[in-house]
């Protein structure tokens, strides 16, 4: 090889990797996001993506934003924080997108936000529920869903009102579940209840017999479990096998999926669960949105779909009020904005931390999820106390 060829090769490589694309002035407003289209969170990331798509369609149907069409530019981050970091850098420095929306999950957001803060880009992060992300002095990130800490609030509140005294809290040992469990413990103490047992189990755990034997010995009135889907199902099954009978038993994520009832059948009756959103909640346009989503994508939306959709609308509203896409002007509006969408209320404190959105607690009653908390959003009354396993 002569010495010229490799130089040319290196230059070509550099250009291929780092080619700069000119940004057009009056094309559509391009909104960039990396989403978990493959990998661990694929199913949930896909729903969020569909929420974004529906928002894009609606905004364009109403004449666009600031007189321009909007268009999403979405890449797949494989549910990996490292990939998301690179993709946000690509969206900002190469694709030169006009705006940014958040990725799926707390860990991915926690990594990606370092990039958006570096370039001073506003990021509405509709699917990050971990409080700490928003409490590190970051300026341009905004929260949409309720924080993990309040997932079990409804269960604890209802228990306290009914005069129950003791609670056991268990959780999966990951970012979100830990926060949900610590929130439940704090709240129970505040309401004068006694936390008689706490334990974390590793992700992927399937055998809960040791844990449940200890709970049975502590004999709590309430079992609050910060779970995902698989552990929620396994925990419930083994509670029945070991005949553990609390007066109330609630789970967090997973309990709201139709699969939860399909798998457990009548054993799911009386179990409480928490969710960010249900299509039955009395927010204006909620039911219509549910129908149009089903028509568009041929399956039911989850709260991830609704949060993605709502987060995108929140950004669009703030940009409209700012009459600009400038990060500081949009930020100012996002801090002031109070807005109700089909997902519920949006309002943040000075850190961009969500303070208005409400979690709801439901109970499985006769194959249906009935919203039982908070009172102003609930449709029915909780069936209390939970009968023994033999009596269901």
């Amino acid at each position, binding site marked *: 090889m002569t010495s010229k060829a490799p130089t040319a090769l*290196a*230059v070509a490589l550099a250009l291929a*990797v*780092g080619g700069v694309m000119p940004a057009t002035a009056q094309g559509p407003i391009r909104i960039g996001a990396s989403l978990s289209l493959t990998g661990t969170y694929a199913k949930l990331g896909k729903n969020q993506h569909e929420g974004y798509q529906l928002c894009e369609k609606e905004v364009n149907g109403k004449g666009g934003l600031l007189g321009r069409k909007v268009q999403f530019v979405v890449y797949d981050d494989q549910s990996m924080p490292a990939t998301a970091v690179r993709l946000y850098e690509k969206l900002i420095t190469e694709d030169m997108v006009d705006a940014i929306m958040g990725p799926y999950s707390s860990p991915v957001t926690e990594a990606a936000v370092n990039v958006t803060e570096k370039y001073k880009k506003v990021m509405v992060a509709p699917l990050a529920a971990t409080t700490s992300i928003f409490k590190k002095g970051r300026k341009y990130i905004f929260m949409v869903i309720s924080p993990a800490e309040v997932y079990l609030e409804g269960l604890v509140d209802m228990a306290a009102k009914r005069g129950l005294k003791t609670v056991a809290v268990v959780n999966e040992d990951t970012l979100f579940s830990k926060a949900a469990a610590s929130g439940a413990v704090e709240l129970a103490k505040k309401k004068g209840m006694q936390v008689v047992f706490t334990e974390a189990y590793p992700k992927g755990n399937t055998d809960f017999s040791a844990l449940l034997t200890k709970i049975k010995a502590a004999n709590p009135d309430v079992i609050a479990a910060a779970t995902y889907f698989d552990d929620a199902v396994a925990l419930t099954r083994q509670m029945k096998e070991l005949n553990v009978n609390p007066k109330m038993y609630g789970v967090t994520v997973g309990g709201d999926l139709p699969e939860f009832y399909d798998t457990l059948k009548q054993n799911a009756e009386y179990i409480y669960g928490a969710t960010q959103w249900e299509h039955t909640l009395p927010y204006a346009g909620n039911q219509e949105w549910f129908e149009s989503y089903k028509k568009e994508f041929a399956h039911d939306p989850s709260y991830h779909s609704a949060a993605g959709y709502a987060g995108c609308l929140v950004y669009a509203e703030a940009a409209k009020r700012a009459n600009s896409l400038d990060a500081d002007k949009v930020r100012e509006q996002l801090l002031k904005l109070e807005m109700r969408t089909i997902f519920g209320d949006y309002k943040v404190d000075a850190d961009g931390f969500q303070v208005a959105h409400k979690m709801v607690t439901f109970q499985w009653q006769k194959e249906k999820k009935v919203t039982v908390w908070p009172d102003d959003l609930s449709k029915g009354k909780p069936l209390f106390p939970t009968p023994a396993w033999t009596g269901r």
Partner: protein
Amino acid sequence: MAAAILSVLAALAAYPVVGTGYGVRSVQQIFMWIALAGSWNLISGLTGYVSFGHVAFFGAGAYAGAILVASAGWPWPLAALAGGAAAVVLAVVIGYPCLRLKGPYFAIAMLGLNEVLRALVSYFEGLTGGGNGLSLPTLDASVPIYYVMGVLAVVVTAMSWLIVTSRFGLRLMTIREDEVAAEAMGIDTFHHKLAALLLSAVGPGVAGALMARDQGYIEPISVFPLAITVTMIVMALFGGKGTVFGPVLGAAALFVAQEIVWARYPYVHPLLFGAIIVGVVLLMPRGVLGLLQQRYRLPRTI
């Protein structure tokens, strides 16, 4: 040859001046994969002792570096060196018992080591943040990290060249071809294998610590995934295992291909990766460089 290498290095050194943020980060990632694939090649390509858990060194380096930055306030370049040291310590712990044995025990132990580390990191919450992960203070050091990662890639590659062209390297390759014969010739196979493993742990350890600093946030699931081990193996195999520049070629080619394919066809990517593994093993077991060496008169030591 030397002039060619120098001009490539000069172009890469000048790149951050003209490159975008994304370009700089991408080339930095290529450097990282060169260091990882090249390091894997030192133990597995040369001695034939396949490591299915090299990501354990990467993850150990990441946590060691991140903890030193977050809790002890070390500057990141020092923490990166400490990450390398932590990986070497880990290599001694696992290599000392396992490399005394011949056969597949080492491969299996490495696979297990990675899982054990992930569980340990989740367990010692006070130090590592457990499942919450570890968040580092925000710092914009993309360009300095680019250069340090580049130096790391060069060091790993230069080390490979020194080893391949030395008596030490020849002995390692003798072990790969026939370990019993190597022993019969008087080679202390255990100490040679152990030395190769220690050298191959440094690069991933330093790379892990640099990655942790650059990304600003790590968690057990994202620094100990099997996928990183698989990727470095595929890169080394594709370029040519047991060669000096094979891992460099494999890392650069596959990373660029991945980056282009990922962006457009997310669902095709895992399939394509699997196809590359099968294709390489069946059609060119010695990789691209091995094939070129067979076809043309190229030196053995590239």
